[in-house]
């Protein structure tokens, strides 16, 4: 019997991530992700409208719990995601290299992702203080304004920077207490799926982040017109897609953000203003009663 030193490798099945589970697309469709040289990397789920709708249900279901968590706890979970990513660095570098990055580029991208998660972990319980106000109204009321999460965010991740773009998009959205559905970069989807595994082992509740793979042109209209989505974000400069998103988003007045000019690898790729793009300002009033007629100077 002939023996060989080379053991047969177990190939990974790249599935999608909805509600903390890893299903295949309900459509049963797939597409082939390959390297620039045409080397086949994986059969990847070609998600359908139904997958997106399932993901919205999961995201909406997770919103109350996630937004209601202590900001400190959200910070800890983002930190935990960074820890998990650090531990699986090698796998991400390997996948990025399969998707045509050089080793140096891949190492740099993964390190940036980890640092970015740490950066937003710290913001979880701080941006509110920066963007809140106590308002000195002229009447006898106590009045304050605080940011609150917008809700369910549908995000189409950048096609370049397939891992860094994805992480840079997700982190501020969930740091602010939102839940999201993210469509991974079409031609480089491997890291997005593996990142879902990191999320799944990081105490992040199921449904807070849902990651789909598929065709942007097919799914983009659904991202923009679903009535239970509160905000939509798109990262390419394609003007006809931008126009369509704003038009369809008008159906329920989704908040729309375009990040086509952001350089994710630079300092400008992170800031609390990204968190604020998915926040609403709530103002609360309450009367002040002057009990017993006490005057200033007590």
């Amino acid at each position, binding site marked *: 019997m002939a023996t060989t030193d080379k053991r047969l490798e177990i190939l990974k099945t790249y599935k999608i991530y909805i509600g903390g589970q890893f299903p295949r697309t309900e459509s049963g469709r797939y597409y082939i992700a390959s390297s620039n040289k045409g080397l086949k990397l994986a059969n990847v789920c070609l998600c359908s409208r139904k997958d997106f709708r399932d993901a919205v249900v999961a995201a909406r279901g997770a919103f109350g719990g996630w937004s209601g968590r202590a900001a400190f706890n959200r910070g800890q979970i983002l930190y935990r995601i960074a820890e998990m990513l650090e531990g699986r660095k090698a796998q991400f570098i390997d996948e990025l290299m399969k998707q045509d990055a050089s080793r140096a580029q891949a190492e740099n991208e993964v390190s940036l992702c980890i640092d970015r998660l740490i950066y937003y972990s710290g913001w979880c319980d701080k941006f509110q203080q*920066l963007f809140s*106000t106590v*308002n*000195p*109204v*002229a*009447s006898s*009321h106590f*009045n304050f*304004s605080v940011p609150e999460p*917008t809700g369910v965010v549908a995000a189409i991740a950048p096609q370049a920077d397939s891992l860094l773009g994805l992480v840079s998009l997700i982190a501020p959205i969930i740091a602010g207490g939102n839940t999201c559905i993210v469509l991974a970069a079409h031609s480089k989807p491997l890291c997005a799926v593996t990142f879902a595994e990191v999320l799944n082992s990081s105490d992040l509740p199921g449904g807070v982040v849902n990651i789909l793979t598929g065709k942007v042109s097919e799914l983009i209209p659904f991202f923009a017109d679903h009535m239970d989505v*509160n905000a939509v974000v798109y990262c390419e400069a394609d*003007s*006809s897609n*931008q*126009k*369509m*998103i*704003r*038009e369809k*988003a*008008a*159906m*329920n*007045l989704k*908040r729309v953000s375009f990040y086509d000019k952001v350089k994710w690898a630079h300092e400008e790729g992170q*800031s609390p*203003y990204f968190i604020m793009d998915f926040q*609403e*300002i*709530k*103002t*609360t*009033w*309450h*009367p002040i009663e002057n009990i017993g007629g006490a005057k200033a100077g007590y």
Partner: protein
Amino acid sequence: MATKKNNTLKLKFDSARKLAPAPESKSAAKIDPQYDLFINGKFEKPLSKKYFATINPATEEKLSVVAEANSSDVNKAVGAARNAYEKVWKKMPARERAKYIYRIARMVQERAREFAIIETLDGGKPIRESRDFDVPTAANHFFYYAGWADKLEYAFPNRNAVPMGVAGQIIPWNFPLLMAAWKIAPALATGNTVVLKPAETTPLTALKLAEIIQEADLPPGVVNIITGAGATGAAIVNHPDINKIAFTGSTEVGKIIQRAIAGTPKKATLELGGKAANIIFDDAPLDQAVEGVINGIFFNQGHVCCAGSRLYVQESVYKEVVRKLKDRIETLIVGDPIDKNTDIGAINSKAQLETINKYIRIGQQEGAEMHQSSCSVPGKGFFCRPTLFTNVAQSNRIAQEEIFGPVLAIQSFRTDDEVIEKANNSAYGLSAGVWTDKGSKIFNMTTKMRAGVVWANTFNKFDPTSPFGGYKESGYGREGGVHGLNAYVNIV
């Protein structure tokens, strides 16, 4: 009417308390027979050559005629605003900009009485409200934002705020002068120039404001005020040289605007409709809560986007609250808005009165029980009695759609969770109200309401320092406070 079993005295205002008419003198207000468009610092005849009448909704008498701007007029106004922006306003030191805005604030204060009278004549709101609320709050808004002009570097940590350019601003008829102030003041403070269009039924106070702007010697073109109806608004929205659209009005039109500017670099802030829930718990001070509910729905005839038009009352106090509300609306004086005793003035227009009456019919057809005040209303003009609906289902149109009139839909609830669910079950999210004596419950409720402004143990309070604006389909962006600056700057 069913006999009431209670030991509380009923309020009686109808016998010995007959109030003599107390009309505010109209002599302090000068209304010209005709108004032109305020473009580039001058009142100019419209290129359209068209004018339309504006009437007093309380008497249906014509007050004046105003110009109807067509797209050429809009183009002229935008051109003036662009020129003023590039050549004057964006180059001017911020502290100088501030002083112009302070001037406007002071002049509005000086002419407050005149503004109040004209606001009431043109829009139908009680003189007490225009005198004590609309005009002073408008002046305060200018005063507040004037001070921001030279302090913007403190408002956006680690960033620079730069003006957007020319802002196109379209405002509604419910608070004509105040909405003009809410739009113009932050836009100018942040270094933008403005083309503003007041609503077609209430153009006069904006045109009086134009007189002040002229008198304040504001550089020509920095503020342009043009009148017209929907077509004029559309011409502003679609003008290619406008950088920013600020709109207050219906959700329906807000959506049209978002679609219209899709594919352009224009930014928008939209302050749209609402269907606010006002929630009374059984531990609330009920008399105070009833006053708050009355103010919440009947302030300005209910023509308020944040009006508390849905009332949720905890079951154990439901009957008592409904009885108190029925008693209280009997005491409301519906009549001539220029009379200082009037509580509820005229409905702003015939069209709006028809809309309100349509909803009153729908409410009855859907099975809700209607109760109206037995008060008399003037024979001329557009009036609507204060109206309550009980036995309302959450799915009824009067509980879901914005009526924009003095119509309150009342429902009951048992638990906190139930009322949170019901209150948030709306496409809108502009405002909400909570009445309870328990502090921890207040914070639980105010945190859970998906709405931009939440009043606890109060309602319908406004202040220049306090951000106002909605969640969900009530629009986006804030007006007021430091957050209101965001609407008019690019952060770089």
